[in-house]
């Protein structure tokens, strides 16, 4: 992302962007903004996509600079080590892309951006026996691949890598959709069992694409299964909260997203009709 990079390079001490995955998604637009569009026609969901692309800039890549520079102290990460010409160092992606665009170095291809590895991943994804996604691809593989392939022109077989990545993305999306189908068939129609999908190793972009639908579906499910006028009320609300938490196993960042939805559950409390105050109604003639 060029504009954000130029913004970063102007100021030495960068704004504190914490790179751990748990808090990275908390920096994204809050899930409390539930609308697809606000009044001016701008899409909140597109903002989430660009945000995750922006946050992918913090991932580390190996970079071979063509110049030497001293250690850079930054506020966000500890430091970017001394750059020596010709020796590969680990830099954040935004810096790598920035320097590559000015032809001051070269980004080395990542381990998983290789045709053979990607073919293996595709095989794994297509295999119907394996329920979860391949563990080769990191969380933000789509954003990383897009940035690197856009900037770095002389990776061999770049086109093939692109095609393979597109195929993998399609197959993964289909996998999630099939999971949702089985979820809807089996457990969503009951209110007692916890609906769970196993989505370990999901990609961040896939999550962002499906997030509004899934959160809305779970909210509606909660509304439809909530209104029992008895002591069962509490267990149902807890079930709703638990199901929201458990539906993203293995992804700590996802828990903070869905945890914001639990506030909806608590707000719901005053909607339960309370009839204790009406016991003293007199009949009128």
């Amino acid at each position: 992302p060029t504009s954000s990079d130029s913004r970063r390079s102007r100021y030495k001490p960068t704004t504190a962007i914490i790179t751990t995955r748990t808090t990275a998604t908390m920096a994204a637009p809050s899930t409390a903004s539930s609308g697809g569009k606000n009044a001016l026609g701008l899409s909140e969901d597109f903002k989430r996509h660009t945000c995750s692309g922006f946050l992918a800039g913090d991932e580390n890549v190996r970079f071979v600079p063509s110049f030497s520079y001293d250690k850079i102290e930054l506020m966000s990460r500890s430091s970017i080590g001394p750059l020596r010409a010709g020796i590969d160092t680990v830099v954040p992606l935004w810096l790598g892309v920035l320097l590559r665009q000015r032809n001051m170095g070269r980004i080395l291809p990542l381990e998983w951006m290789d045709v053979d590895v990607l073919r293996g991943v595709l095989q794994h994804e297509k295999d119907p026996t394996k329920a979860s996604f391949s563990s080769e691809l990191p969380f933000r593989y789509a954003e990383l691949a897009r940035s690197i392939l856009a900037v770095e022109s002389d990776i061999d077989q770049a086109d093939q890598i692109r095609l393979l990545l597109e195929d993998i993305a399609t197959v993964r999306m289909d996998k999630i959709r099939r999971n949702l189908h089985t979820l809807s068939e089996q457990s969503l129609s009951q209110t007692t069992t916890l609906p769970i999908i196993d989505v370990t190793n999901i990609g961040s972009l896939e999550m962002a694409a499906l997030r509004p639908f899934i959160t809305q579906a779970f909210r509606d499910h909660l509304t439809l299964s909530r209104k029992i006028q008895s002591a069962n009320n509490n267990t149902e609300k807890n079930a709703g909260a638990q199901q929201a938490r458990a539906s993203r196993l293995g992804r700590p960042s996802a828990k903070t997203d869905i945890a914001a939805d639990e506030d909806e559950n608590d707000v719901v409390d005053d909607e339960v009709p309370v009839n204790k105050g009406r016991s003293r109604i007199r009949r009128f003639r």
Partner: protein
Amino acid sequence: MQSSSYYDIDSILSEEELVPCTNLFDFARLAHLSPDYHTIDTTSNKENNNNKALYLPESSSFKMPLWSIEQWTQLGFVKISVPKHFRQTARERLQADPSQADLRRYNERFYTSGLKWIALVSSTSTTSSTDTNKNLSRQQRQQQEINQREAKALRTTLLQTYTGDRLRRTLDFAMSSVGDDVSFYTKKLTEMERHLFQRGSSGATAFQKWKTYGNRRIEMGVLAQRAASMETRGCTSSSKVVTPDNHTNNTTNATGNKRQRRQ
């Protein structure tokens, strides 16, 4: 989720659901509620307030919207029963073919109306349980039990319809038809499902948009746009209220939101 505020339009409109009720004693001057009002002769003695012809006789059945009879049921004036499309036969028809059922044809807010009716039934049953038993005739109690059974069955039906075939089809349609006209599908969905579809397609179109533009396209925030347009107009000291409708200069109407597309 729709906000549960008092002014929430969706819940207000979903209470418009007509509920069949029978009154338990004569209603004064409310004869117009009865469906065969036009046969009553009202041309003579209009000034007489105690005209018996204007009374709604006991045990006449009529249909009233849910918001109006909520107090009446709790005061014990009327006896309610199940609206037509929540009954056993309609439910079975729904369960037989959930995805093709045109829920919108009966009520645009099928699910929320159903929930409101269930809430009404459960609130009547709790208030009457605090009354002394002799106030309830056996017939009324029977009706209440029928209502409660129907309410319970309706709850499961609503949940199963929503999360069953319709959810799957909505997911497939939302995720795969970016930029296509799927009004043939959405015109059968209730408001709740339409909202769901809208969210799904919004996510899908944002994904598509990201694939073409990446991070290059950055949109202005709401406050920044308003500030910019206020500067260009020079209305820093005007008392004009800034509403979203005023900003016609910078509406980037993105490709999402299928319902606004006219093709």
